[in-house]
């Protein structure tokens, strides 16, 4: 078996071959090495392996944008075709969307979700959390106070709730946070 080397496209003989395809003609297996353009023309929809670098280079613009977590720039990615870390996906999301669409014909995940991610999300979005009595959802008070007094009290209450909410989130007490947030919403709605 001969070693793999850089080959020119078998059809146009100009560009570098990036699509490798086997064709069986008269019982003989013929290897076809084509460039992206000729492969598409031949109706071969880029079977594996195709070069990520080429694809990325062809459909994205240069950019000096840099990922905070790993230091990778979008230009680095255009050269190597691999991202540097999970945060890169957030940093370069705009530019990545067209590449992802091109590869997968979709840009939205459907399928397994890690259970810890699932739970965090559930804690945040749960609408019907049973709130413990120490964080009662405030009912509109049957007002022994004047309207002004009651508003001042509500503002004070809102301030303290907002403080609680912040510390609940930073302590990752998401259930408590959800209750506090609901209570805040209701209170603010009555102002």
């Amino acid at each position, binding site marked *: 078996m*001969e070693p793999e080397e850089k080959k020119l496209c078998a059809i146009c003989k100009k560009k570098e071959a990036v699509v490798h395809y*086997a064709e*069986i003609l008269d019982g003989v297996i013929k290897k076809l090495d084509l460039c992206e353009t000729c492969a598409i023309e031949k*109706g071969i929809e880029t079977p594996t392996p195709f070069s990520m670098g080429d694809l990325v280079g062809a459909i994205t613009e240069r950019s000096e944008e840099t990922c905070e977590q790993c230091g990778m720039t979008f230009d680095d990615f255009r050269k190597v075709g691999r991202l540097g870390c999970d945060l890169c996906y957030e940093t370069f999301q705009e530019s990545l969307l067209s590449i992802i669409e091109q*590869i997968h014909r979709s840009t*939205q995940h459907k399928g397994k*979700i890690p259970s810890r991610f699932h739970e965090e999300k559930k804690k945040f979005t749960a609408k019907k959390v049973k709130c413990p009595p120490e964080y009662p959802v405030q009912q509109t008070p049957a007002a022994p106070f004047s309207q002004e007094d009651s508003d001042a009290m509500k503002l004070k209450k809102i301030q303290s709730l907002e403080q609680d909410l912040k510390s609940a989130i930073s302590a990752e007490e998401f259930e408590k946070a959800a209750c506090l947030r609901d209570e805040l919403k209701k209170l603010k709605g009555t102002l």
Partner: protein
Amino acid sequence: MKIQVLLKKTSEWLNGTGPESDLVLSSRIRIARNIKGFRFPGKATSEDKKKILSIVESVVSSSKSSMLKGSLFVHIHELDDVDRQFLVERHLISPELSNASTGSGVIISNKETISIMINEEDHLRIQVLHSGLQLKEVWKTIDELDTELEKTLDFAFSSKFGYLTACPTNLGTGIRASAMLHLPALVYSKQINKVLHATVKLGLAVRGLYGEGSEALGNLFQISNQASLGMNETEIIETLSKVVRQIIMYEKNQRRYLINNNLKEVEDRVWRAYGSLTTARIITSKETIGLLSTLRMGVDLGILESHLRKLVNELLILTQPANLQKNFDRKLNPTERDIERANLIRQKLVRNSKAGKESKEDEK
């Protein structure tokens, strides 16, 4: 070297059992996972990689899951070239991982059905391999394993892009599912081209198992999904299974046609292959793969005894350069290898001397 223990047993996926095992050698799924907050291996420092390696190793060794009991932990940089190649030939690591330096490793389960590659292109590449066509069962195993690991490992995930991977081609489910098919009749009758074209059109990838690029030595083809985002795991696996079933049907039709119309020609090929393998004194790995493919077809068509199937599967792996050298426990030059390969094949096949059904007929 500790990987020596693998030599003593046959990988379970070579058993030649499971649904459609006459045409489907194996079903494989691998998933890509990364740990939140760490740079991907290509951008990570060797300190980071060592840290990830030890985190994953400690998670696996402290897991109570029966799937991981008795696993073998291997650090790639501690292996010599032959050992690395040995693991590639047994489908336990990828060629990419075999070139890795410090900080990369693999965890191999007891029966060689599970391998967890650490710091390949992604932090984790989990692979499950079974014999025959059983992608659903493979998914069940790998899903369970993934759920077990994510109890302690915080995987990088976004609700939009799914599991975040170094290369955007693996984004979403992180799945690559594949089936390895033996399609001699389609190749023989020159129908394979049409079938492969149609497969590619359906969004699946095809490659030859052995040989450079997509050349298909031994009539072995690997069919796999391309897209990993936008469909869930079950949909991806079902699409692949459907297409594989269709290809199996074409191959079976073609085999029936061969038996009905060209039986003597097929028998001649099979027995000549058997003759070469049992008498050769020097044989290359390329020639071996081709002849083993013909032998396998002989078993499938009832020309040779069915107990040979497992042996043919085994020989496919054992006759490859690194497996051969591990068996001899020393480096062999290419000429020595071709001689020892011929010896090994003769030993194994002659021990199974009652190979054919026709030989009995001839004695009458």
